[in-house]
């Protein structure tokens, strides 16, 4: 008795192999969609905006005339925002990650906190904007200040840094932890002198990636009322400010076609900053990540 009908199999085989080959190239094509879009976006933007990338563009404030519009105010504002957001976000998220990984008992509350953090990661940024508007701008009367925006941004990027830090702390092998305890170190000494130094590259990478998300985030800033046109730079955390994505957004909406090029120039600057931050993150990840 013949179990396999060889004729039948070989009749279908060429079709099956052809389909396999065709779909392989379709999958490849789909993979390249992202690449093509990215290239188009970059080329289109650079071709459009490079003419406006003059030294004046970096040293002048925004203007109603495209030829004299610049991003000085927005650039300084973004630097302020990042300088205030970073420490708040770092303290909150690394503290949370340390507690969850090193101290937290296994109980319902801790479980709830973990689920809650992963849910927070999925909350749209506009909703964080509404929280910031009600809590920081109105209730705490911070107005549309650097501090109000920084607090909103910190809460928004918190889940990202917490998850990155948790992974990094978890990857520190328990052997070196036990060695430290065995040598007589206390738990806090073990954390500050053994675990954190080993986990810090991963944590920093997470922080930089989270901040690079915050730097391009526009919606929460619009909602807490950051002005689009501002002809001064902040001198303290309670001053109002402008930011790069806000500036880009306000230029996008202008009907004058020349402003399209100004917008593109602003985008080039924003993307360049993001590119720098990501390069630093990748460099740190590759250079300092230790394998135990």
């Amino acid at each position: 008795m013949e179990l396999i009908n060889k004729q039948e199999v070989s009749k279908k085989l060429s079709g099956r192999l052809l389909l396999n080959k065709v779909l392989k190239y379709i999958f490849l094509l789909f993979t390249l969609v992202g690449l093509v879009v990215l290239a188009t976006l970059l080329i289109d933007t650079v071709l459009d905006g490079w003419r406006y990338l003059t030294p004046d563009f970096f040293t002048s404030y925004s203007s109603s005339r495209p030829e004299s519009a610049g991003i000085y105010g927005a650039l300084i504002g973004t630097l302020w925002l990042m300088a205030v957001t970073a420490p708040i976000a770092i303290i909150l998220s690394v503290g949370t990650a340390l507690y969850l990984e090193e101290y937290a008992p296994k109980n319902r509350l801790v479980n709830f906190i973990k689920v809650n953090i992963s849910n927070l990661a999925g909350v749209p940024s506009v909703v964080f904007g509404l929280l910031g508007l009600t809590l920081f701008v109105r209730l705490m009367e911070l107005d549309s200040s650097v501090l109000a925006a920084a607090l909103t941004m910190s809460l928004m990027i918190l889940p990202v840094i917490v998850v990155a830090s948790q992974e990094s702390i978890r990857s520190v092998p328990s052997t070196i932890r036990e060695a430290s305890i065995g040598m007589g170190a206390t738990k806090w000494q073990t954390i500050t002198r053994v675990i954190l130094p080993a986990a810090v590259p991963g944590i920093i990478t997470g922080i930089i990636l989270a901040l690079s998300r915050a730097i391009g985030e526009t919606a929460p800033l619009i909602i807490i009322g950051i002005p689009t046109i501002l002809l001064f730079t902040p001198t303290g955390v309670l001053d109002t400010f402008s930011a790069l994505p806000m500036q880009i957004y306000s230029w996008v909406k202008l009907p004058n076609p020349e402003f399209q090029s100004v917008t593109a120039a602003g985008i080039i600057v924003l993307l360049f900053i993001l590119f720098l931050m990501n390069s630093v993150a990748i460099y740190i990840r590759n250079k300092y990540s230790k394998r135990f």
Partner: protein
Amino acid sequence: MSEYNIQKMISEKKGRRSSAFIEKMVPIILLLITLVSVLTTIGILVTLLSETIVFFTRVSPIEFLTSTEWSAFSSDPQWGIFALIMGTLKITVIAVIFAVPVGLGAAIYLSEYASDRVRRIIKPILEILAGIPTVVYGFFALTFVTPLLRGIWSEVNLFNALSPGLVVGVMIIPMIASLSEDAMSAVPNTMREGALGLGSTRLEMVFKVILPAAISGILSSIVLAVSRAIGETMIVSIAAGSTPNASINILESLQTMTGFIVQVASGDATYGTDTYFSLYAVGMTLFVFTLIMNVVAQWLSRKFREEY
């Protein structure tokens, strides 16, 4: 040798109360910090709920849920959230139709066909794509994709659903691709070898073995991407227009829930007006939608997880 008496040193150090105090305080301080994330959630819920309730004392919830017209800025305002939901839905459906096949195809290629070298080149590019600010995508949709579509198809309006929908799709492709790829890579090689050994082609192996085995991760990546598309703000506020309507025409101007929130917050409403409070009612609706999606995604990845 008395200066190296370790026993004495230890007992001296033990006596120092500051270190014992630190050991006791640190967990408490860290717990307080951890609770900030819980307070954030409570803050979001309380904020949205309390202002939404104020809104519903002024506008009937029945009108909010059943009317199909939304005109917050007219002299006779209409508050039918359906018009905004329809806008969000149109964008999301276009984005998903575009992104799911492309994202999954990319995931299959990267996980099952690509060599290690190709994977190492493509994956960072997808990461870059995921990191581009949405305001930049919005500019791209308005100044590149829309004119392109209008060149092909003259009925497309300057503001439409198609162009921002496609660009939102591009935005969520990396998410679907990388999460699905993770799910497929987690399928053990023994199953691949089993399928190939039985004489299936690579394609048959993908569809009959790998995809069913990785289905929980794939579905949850899609649901998460849908949630991202629903909450996406800048692309739609720049390229989709600001005319809420409940039609299914994807070539004309529309407004999404997020687009409305941005329009109001950009300065069209003053504190205390109906329009101001409608901000929170819309925000609440948006929050509920995305929350459901996130819970479904978590449930999916738990429910259908196959352990090998």
